[in-house]
């Protein structure tokens, strides 16, 4: 078992504290519950994803059943993937990581189990209400008020558990992962309240502005920081390398804390919102390159001289590919905000290509890597199949790249055509049919990735225990 000290720079953690540390204090029930349920939703919502991709090619599909119309399945797909899969998986990983970085056990395993139960109630409630067409009409904030309130309660329970764990920590210095985790908890609270409650007291452009503040920061101040928390922990951990630079990680974190929240209005560029606000959002969107490049440089430099490990270390493959996707998606984002680029790509199919690279390509890859690393350890066994894990990586990668690239090309072409008003709109729809067909088949590959991943993890969880020694041999 590697000591927690390996992920820090030499000398930053007192050796005695690391030596006193004992892995067996952790119970990890909460982490296990969150991971198991999130991976199940990943699979179920993956089916929904395939159905809506198919509807672009065969629009009549299930067309007479109100519950299965595109407009009801799409929010189910988005909310299911964001909150059922990704956020829950991230929370599960935080329940594993934070106690270890603090050298203590989770503050309250009981509270954690209750949180997991509540989270599942919320997700099931979301499935039912969205299929029934109960929808607040605001993106990412579709869930009705009672469920929003439950989300807030669950978030406070999660936050209290993590903060109390940090408050009782044995190691005085908080590693980067802890900053990102605490930041996520604090910012999410305000971002979520803005998007789901403040919007109820406003209308029109004012409401849209609050809505985009939420939508943008759901990605920028929820999924980004918790995703980076995971990457900062698991990249050094799985490669057995200390993090390259503490100073760079500080620059990355504090610039993210300052810059992200300004950019919401870039969703309305050229739209009916004050020009000066659009300009502010553009300036800050471009400044996002600072936190992103600081973080990515740090990760690459950590891997210096160690790239050969990518050959057979599956979690590391997911992590480093995720870092590349993160770099690319966060290069696209600032570029889209420039007025000239925005005039072409905004509202086109380019945008789902971009969004999927962030949420699937970067942050889900981080979470998947975390699950592959963590689950065998908390189940005190070895991964059910290393070969299957490798398959899942290639399916996700090929499916993902196919998806992103076809949508970028198709979306760019679409935007180009829209800018020529002589082309009737319907011709621009028909022109994209091949693109949507390729997207559907890429989706099947990605779904294959989900199936192999989910099967592998669940088989590890439910399979026989006690292959620990073999696991240790395999990683040695």
């Amino acid at each position, binding site marked *: 078992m590697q000591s927690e000290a390996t992920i820090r720079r030499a000398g930053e953690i007192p050796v005695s504290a690391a030596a006193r540390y004992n892995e067996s204090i952790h119970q990890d029930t909460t982490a296990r519950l969150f991971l198991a349920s999130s991976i199940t939703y990943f699979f179920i919502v993956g089916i929904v994803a395939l159905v809506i991709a198919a509807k672009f090619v065969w*629009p009549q599909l299930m067309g007479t059943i109100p519950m299965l119309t595109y*407009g009801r399945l799409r929010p189910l797909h988005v909310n299911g993937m964001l909150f059922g899969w990704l956020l829950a998986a991230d929370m599960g990983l935080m329940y594993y990581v934070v106690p270890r970085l603090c050298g203590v056990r989770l503050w309250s395993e009981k509270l954690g189990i209750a949180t997991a139960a509540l989270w599942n109630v919320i997700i099931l409630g979301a499935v039912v209400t969205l299929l029934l067409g109960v929808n607040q009409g605001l993106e990412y904030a579709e869930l009705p008020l009672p469920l929003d309130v439950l989300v807030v309660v669950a978030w406070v329970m999660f936050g209290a558990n993590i903060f109390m764990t940090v408050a009782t920590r044995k190691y005085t*210095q908080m590693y980067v992962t802890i*900053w990102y985790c605490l930041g996520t908890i604090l910012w999410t609270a305000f971002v979520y309240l803005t998007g789901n409650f403040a919007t109820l007291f406003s209308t029109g452009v004012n409401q849209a502005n609050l809505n985009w503040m939420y939508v943008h920061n759901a990605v920028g101040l929820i999924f980004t920081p918790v995703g980076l928390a995971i990457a900062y922990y698991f990249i050094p951990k799985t490669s057995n390398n200390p993090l390259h630079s503490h100073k760079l990680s500080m620059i990355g974190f504090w610039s993210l804390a300052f810059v992200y929240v300004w950019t919401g209005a870039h969703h309305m560029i050229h739209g009916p919102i004050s020009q000066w606000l659009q300009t502010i959002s553009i300036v800050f969107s471009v400044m996002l390159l600072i936190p992103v490049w600081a973080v990515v440089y740090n990760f690459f430099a950590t891997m210096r001289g160690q790239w050969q490990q990518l050959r057979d270390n599956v979690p590391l493959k997911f992590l480093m590919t995720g870092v590349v996707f993160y770099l690319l998606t966060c290069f696209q984002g600032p570029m889209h905000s420039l007025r000239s680029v925005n005039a072409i790509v905004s509202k086109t199919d380019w945008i789902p290509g971009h969004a999927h690279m962030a949420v699937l390509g970067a942050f889900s890859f981080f979470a998947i890597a975390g699950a592959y690393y963590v689950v065998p350890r908390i189940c005190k066994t070895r991964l059910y199949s290393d070969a299957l894990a490798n398959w899942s990586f290639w399916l996700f990668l090929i499916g993902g790249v196919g998806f992103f690239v076809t949508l970028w090309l198709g979306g760019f072409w679409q935007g180009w055509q829209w800018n020529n008003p002589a082309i009737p709109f319907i011709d621009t729809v028909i022109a994209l049919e091949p693109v949507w067909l390729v997207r559907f088949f890429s989706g099947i590959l990605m779904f294959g990735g989900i199936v192999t991943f989910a099967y592998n993890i669940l088989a590890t969880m439910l399979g026989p225990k006690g292959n620990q020694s073999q696991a240790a041999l395999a990683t040695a």
Partner: protein
Amino acid sequence: MLRKADYSAPVFVAAALGLFFIGGLLTTVVPPLMDKSWAKPFENSDAAKGVTGKLQPYTEQQLQGRAIYVREGCWYCHTQQTRTLLADTKRSGWRGVDAPISTPDEFVYDSPHLFGTKRTGPDLSRVGGKYDEQWHKAHFRNPRDLVPGSIMPPFPWIANNETEFQALVAYMQTLGRAKNWRPDNDYEK
């Protein structure tokens, strides 16, 4: 200074929230205070100052139609904003007349706002009065009957429910009508 935040959770919390709130407040609370057009309904009776018209609050029936539009997720495929792009004003236009650009004062009564992010179908910000009821009925029943190659889903349960259908069409016909932009009042009912 931020090094302190590595060791002290209270310092960390104060710094993380402080930095967040600067941008958070300046971009959400301040803008509506500065730009009054966000809250003042459109009204202009002076043709010299541009297109005339007045934004009306929604009727009961129109609100019901709007709720159906939200329920069925029309807004995932249709935007409602004619942007400051030449192509947008032309595409939303009618018989050679360019549609006026959307302005914040046209949306004061909208909640939820339905500006949208994706144009799988055309923008609907000026669709009010473009088609008559008959057209909409056939279109909801099966879009491909009217527009071959369309990927809009069929909505037979709306077309077959007269109350819902009437409400939805009543709402569609309000879209973009605060500004009386078509010459000779040339709108379908």
